[in-house]
C-alpha cells in the first residue's frame, strides 16, 4: 500500500539507477531534508540543538567515513579516534594560523590532511588484513593520541595541552566560539552531513565503490578481474579518513569548543563509531545514520526517562544505561546481524507487498 510500484515506470537509464527509485521513498527523502533544513532550526531549543543533534550529525559523518572503509571495502579499522584527532588538531592549527580564512575551508582542509595521514596508516593494509590490520590501526590510534599529547607545537604551547576553538564566522554568523548560536552550529554541521552523505552515496555506487566491494567480497578474485588492490584500498583509506577528519574537526571546533586529546579522541571513540556502523548496518549510508542515532540518542533518552521522569539516582541510572545499551547491542546482533539498515530493508520489502503478501 505504501510502496506502490505500479505507475513508477522508468524510461531512462538515469531514472533506473537513481538512489531512490520508488516515488514514495523519494518524496519521503525530500520531506526529511525539508524538515531538517527549514523546520528544525526554528523549533529546537538550545539543549536539543547543541547537546543532542550536533553529536548525532557529527557522529553520522564519522560513521559514514568508517563505513566506507570497513563496510564497503572490508578493511577493519580501530583508528577512528586517532584520525578524528588529526582532523581536530589540523583544524586548530589552521584556525589559529590563518584566522581570516573561512572556517568552512579549514574543515575541508582538515579532512584532506587527515586523508593523507589515513593513507599513510593504510599502507600496511596491502600486506595484512582482518585482525592484523585492526591491530595496525590500533597502533595508529595510540600513536596519534600520544603525538598530540607529546609535541607542544600541536597545541600552540599552551600550559595545559588543551586546544580551544576561537570564534570564526561563515557569512557573518558565528559558527565556533562560545557565543555562536545553536541554530547556526546545527546548520553548519547539517551542510557537511548532507554533502558527505551525498558524496559517499555516489562514490559507493560508482566504479570506485564497486571496486571497494569487490575487494571486500574476495580480494583475490577482484585482482584477477582487474581491480588494482593498491589503488582501491588506499583510496578507501583516503576517502574514509577524509570524512572522519571532517567529523573530528567539527567535533572539536563546533560541538565541544575545547578538547583534550586523550579524553575526547581516545580508544573509546574508535569503539563507539565501530559500534555505530555494526548496529546501523555495514555497507549502508542509511545504516550510518541509524547507528549514530541509536548510540547518541538512546543514552540521552534513557537518562531523561530514568532521572527526569522516574527521579532515580543518577549513578543508578548511569549504570542502567550502560547495561541496557549493552543488552540491546547483543540482542540486536543476535536477531539482526546486518543491523538497523537490514531491518529497514525488510520492513520496506514487506510494505511493498502489503496487504497482499502472496
Amino acid at each position, binding site marked *: 500500500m505504501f510502496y506502490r510500484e505500479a505507475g513508477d515506470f522508468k524510461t531512462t537509464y538515469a531514472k533506473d539507477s537513481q538512489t531512490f527509485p520508488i516515488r514514495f521513498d523519494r518524496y519521503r527523502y525530500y520531506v526529511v531534508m525539508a524538515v531538517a533544513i527549514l523546520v528544525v532550526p526554528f523549533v529546537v531549543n538550545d539543549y536539543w540543538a547543541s547537546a543532542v543533534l550536533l553529536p548525532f550529525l557529527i557522529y553520522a559523518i564519522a560513521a559514514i567515513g568508517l563505513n566506507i572503509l570497513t563496510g564497503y571495502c572490508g578493511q577493519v579499522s580501530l583508528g577512528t579516534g586517532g584520525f578524528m584527532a588529526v582532523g581536530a588538531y589540523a583544524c586548530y592549527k589552521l584556525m589559529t594560523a590563518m584566522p581570516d580564512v573561512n572556517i568552512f575551508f579549514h574543515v575541508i582542509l582538515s579532512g584532506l590532511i587527515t586523508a593523507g595521514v589515513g593513507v599513510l596508516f593504510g599502507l600496511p593494509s596491502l600486506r595484512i588484513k582482518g585482525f592484523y590490520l585492526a591491530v595496525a590501526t590500533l597502533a595508529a590510534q595510540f600513536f596519534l593520541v600520544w603525538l598530540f599529547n607529546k609535541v607542544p607545537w600541536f597545541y600552540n604551547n599552551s*600550559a595545559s595541552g588543551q586546544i580551544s576553538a576561537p570564534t570564526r564566522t561563515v557569512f557573518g554568523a558565528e559558527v565556533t566560539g562560545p557565543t555562536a548560536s545553536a541554530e547556526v552550529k546545527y546548520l553548519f554541521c547539517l551542510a557537511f552531513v548532507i554533502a558527505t552523505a551525498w558524496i559517499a552515496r555516489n562514490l559507493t555506487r560508482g566504479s570506485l565503490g564497486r571496486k571497494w566491494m569487490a575487494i571486500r567480497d574476495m580480494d583475490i578474485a577482484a585482482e584477477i578481474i582487474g581491480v588494482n588492490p593498491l589503488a582501491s584500498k588506499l583510496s578507501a583509506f583516503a576517502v574514509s579518513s577524509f570524512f572522519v577528519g571532517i567529523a573530528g574537526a567539527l567535533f572539536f571546533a563546533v560541538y*565541544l569548543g575545547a578538547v583534550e586529546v586523550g579524553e*575526547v579522541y581516545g580508544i573509546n571513540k574508535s569503539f563507539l563509531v565501530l559500534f555505530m556502523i555494526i548496529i546501523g548496518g555495514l555497507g549502508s549510508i542509511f545504516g550510518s545514520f541509524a547507528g549514530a542515532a541509536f548510540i547518541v540518542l538512546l543514552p540521552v533518552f534513557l537518562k531523561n526517562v530514568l532521572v527526569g521522569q522516574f527521579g532515580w539516582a543518577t549513578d543508578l541510572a548511569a549504570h542502567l544505561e550502560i547495561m541496557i545499551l549493552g543488552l540491546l547491542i547483543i540482542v540486536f546482533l543476535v536477531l539482526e546481524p546486518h543491523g538497523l539498515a537490514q531491518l529497514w530493508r525488510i520492513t520496506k520489502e514487506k510494505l511493498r507487498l502489503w496487504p497482499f503478501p502472496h
Partner: protein
Amino acid sequence: MKTKLLAALTATIMGAAPALADLTIPTLNYRTGPYAPSGIPYADGFSDYLTLLNERDGGIGGEMIDEKECETGYNTEKGVECYEQTKADGLIYIPQSTGITYQLIPKASADNIPVWSVAYGRTSAVNGKVFEWIFNMPVTYWDGASVAVKYAMEEEGGSLDGKKIALIYHNSAYGKEPIRTLEALSEKHGFELLPLAVDHPGQEQKSQWLQIRRERPDYVLMWGWGVMNQVAIQEAANIRFPMDKFIGVWWSGSEADVVPVGAGANGYKSLNFHGTGSEFPAMQEIKSMVIDAGMGAGDGSKFGEVGYNRGVFAAAVTTEAIRQAQEASGKSDISPSDLRDAMESLEITEDRWSEMGLPGFAPAISVTCAVHSSPRLAAVQQWDAEAGEWNLLTDFMEPDFDVVDPLIEEDSMAYAAEAGIEPRSCE
C-alpha cells in the same frame, strides 16, 4: 492513541521538568567510571551539606535549595550535555573536572553564569580582570606546586640546590598544569625536575616507577586522580620509596587513595586546603540530622573522609556566597549575576567559619574583583595508616607569589588576546 503516545514520548525526551525551587544548584557529579572512588565522597558531602541547610534552616534566606544532580562520569561530552540541560535555571556551576571547566569557561561567560572550579581548572582564571565569570578558589595548582616545593625546601633545611624532584602526573590538562610553575621554581632554587607522565586512567605505571628507582629523586610530587593514586602509592611502597618524601596534590590525598595500600601507605603526604576529620559541629549535625535520619546522598560510609569534607567545603562556600548575594541584592530569589557579584566580594572570616559550625575548618576567604582566588593557602597532611586518619602536619602555607603571579598574568593575558577579551579595570 498513537499521537498520544508520541506526545508523551516527546514530552519525556524534552525532559523539561519545571523548576520548583528558586535556588537551583546543578551538580555535575561522577559516581561512575574510573574516577568514581574520588567522585563519590565529594558528591555525598556536597549534597549532605545542602540537605542539612534545607532541614535545619529551611534553605537559605527562606528559599529552599534544589540540587539537580547530573551524572558526568568525568566525561567532557556528558558534562556539556548536563550543562546545556540545566543552564536555564542553574545558579552556579562547579564543573568537577578540569576538562569540563575548560568547556564551560567560554560557554558560561557568554551565558552569564558563574563557574567555580574548586582548586582545579584553569589556573590563570585567578585573574578576575580577564575571567569575569570564573573563580578558582581557594587555591590553584600553581600555588600547590609552589607550596609543595616550599615544604620540601623547609624539610631539607632551606635549600634544594642540587636536589632532584620527580613529578608523576596524569597525562592530561589537569596533570600538566603544575609543570610550568615547577620549571620556573627549579630554575630559581636549582633543583632538577623529572616529569613522568602516566596515561589515562593510570593503572599502568610500572615503567615510571622503575625510572624513579633508577634516578633516585629526593622527592616525588604527584598530580594524580582516581585509580591512578592508589596504584602510584602501591608502586612507591613496592620500591620502598620513603613515603614521607612523596607528596601528592590535594586530589591525591584521600582515604580512597591510601586505604587499599594498607600499612605500606603509612606516612604518605599530600596537600590540602581544609580541615580533616569529623569533629566539627556542622559535621556532627550532618551526622545526626541527615545521615542518621536516612536522608544522606550516599550510604554514609564516606562521612568524614577527605573527599567528603571537600564536598562540605564547596557546599559551605557556595551557600555562604548565595547568602551574601541575598543580602547585597535585597531579594531572596537571586540571579546568577547576583551570585557572581557576591562571589567577587566574598568574605568568610574565621568567625564566620565558626558561626557556620566549622571553626578552624579552612582559612578565611576574601575575594576581590582582580583576584578571583582566596586565600591561596595549602597545608601538608600525612596519612596515619594505623589510626586510619589524615592529620594536618603544617599550618596553611603561602605559595611563592613572586613566581606564580607573573605566570598567571602571562597566561591570562594570552587567553585574553586569543579570545578577544578587553581586561576590566577593576577600579
